[in-house]
């Protein structure tokens, strides 16, 4: 009995289980744990000022990115709706007016000859003869 009790406190895998699995399990568990801890341990080698500076800059950039994303969303919405209300109707109407005037000009050209449509065009040499066309 005392020999069995003494064994578990000693380091190394317990003799009841097969050694290979135990070693793998332990190492896997140790590996998961120790990878993060190892990486974190690595950072401890830098002096405090660099560590705090890195932390602060990382958190600042994250919050800045979030703020910028939120701002750009609302700015896009405000800009689009304001443009829609303030500028779009004027653009529509002026475009329509231009098109109408162009159309009228074209019609006049077809009806009366190619020179009457242009304002300041060449002096009329050709007699208007739409019927012969």
């Amino acid at each position, binding site marked *: 009995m005392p020999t069995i009790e003494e064994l578990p406190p000693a380091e190394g895998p317990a003799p009841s289980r097969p050694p290979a699995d135990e070693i793998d399990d332990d190492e896997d568990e140790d590996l998961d744990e120790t990878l993060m801890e190892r990486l974190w341990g690595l950072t401890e080698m830098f002096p405090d000022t660099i560590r705090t500076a890195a932390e602060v800059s990382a958190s600042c950039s994250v919050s800045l990115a979030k703020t910028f994303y939120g701002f750009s969303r609302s700015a896009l919405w*405000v800009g689009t*709706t*304001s443009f829609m*209300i*303030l500028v779009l*109707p*004027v653009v529509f*109407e*002026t475009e*329509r*007016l231009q098109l109408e005037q162009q159309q009228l000009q074209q019609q006049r050209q077809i009806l009366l000859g190619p020179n009457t449509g242009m304002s300041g065009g060449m002096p009329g040499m050709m007699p208007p003869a739409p019927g012969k066309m």
Partner: protein
Amino acid sequence: MGSVLAAASPSPAPAAAGASQGVQGLASVPPGFTMPPLSSVSPTSGQQTADAEPPLANPGTYEECHRKCKEVFPLQMEGVRLVVNKGLSNHFQVSHTVTLSTLGDSGYRFGSTYVGTKQTGPAESFPVMVGDMDNTGSLNAQIIHQLASAVRTKIAIQTQQHKFVNWQCDMEWRGEDFTAAVTLGNPDITVGSGILVGHYLQSITPALALGGEVVYHRRPGEEVAVTSLLGRYTGDNYVATLTLGAAGGHATYYHKATDQLQIGVEFEANTRMQDTTTSFGYQLDVPKANFLFKGTVDSNWMVGATIEKKLLPLPLTLALGAFLNHRKHKFQCGFGVTIG
């Protein structure tokens, strides 16, 4: 007090078909636009210009000083409105208005305008009687008459169903280079209450006009007097007005950029509510397309616009309006059709 002052401004003045324009012809042109400076012409002319000053024109009324800028801004429209204007004769005009609204009440309103036969100018005839009645029985009525060559008087009443809400009498005296007006609002002899408003506006130079307003408000056991000063400067194509008083300040600037584009900037500061508002408005007029566009941007994060389009050849005018409040995320739109 606010409602009396609002009612003291000249009536909406629907123009009688083919006749004079009534109240709006009162002071449509500020002095600086029509008065060329004469002082440089000939100080040694044979006339008795002892002080060699150009003759000062009448500065217009006190209420109209801020009006040129205010007209550039669009009105907030909500719901559907159909207006039918019919001129029955040169002197008489009738209008029917049907309003359908989501926020307020829907109703029908009948209005009539009578313009008298005493013609004082090319665009003015007196007396002018304007009245309109609601489907609930609320009445608004105004009578404007010219008593003498320089004295004009106005009586206005407003009721809400059968109860009289506003009744006021107003007298205005236009001198050579000044305008003085006295308004008595809601006088009640039995209780001893009422509002007395005095306006005075004087042309100092052809471009500059200064004036003041005194409002005396009396209720049983309480009397309050409020004073404010007004200054208006008219340039070649701009008008700048400033009002300062105990209740706050109000500054407007109107600029006529081109034939089609007019711009207005307004700044208002209120001492009672401790807030200031800045608004920028513009009006774009394209007569070839029968299109009138008014837009505004506000410091309260409010954006709004109105379109008025004449659908020729029919005598129809289509009005569309939209107002968007970015801060409160509220949107309001409306449209109206005017026939005649």
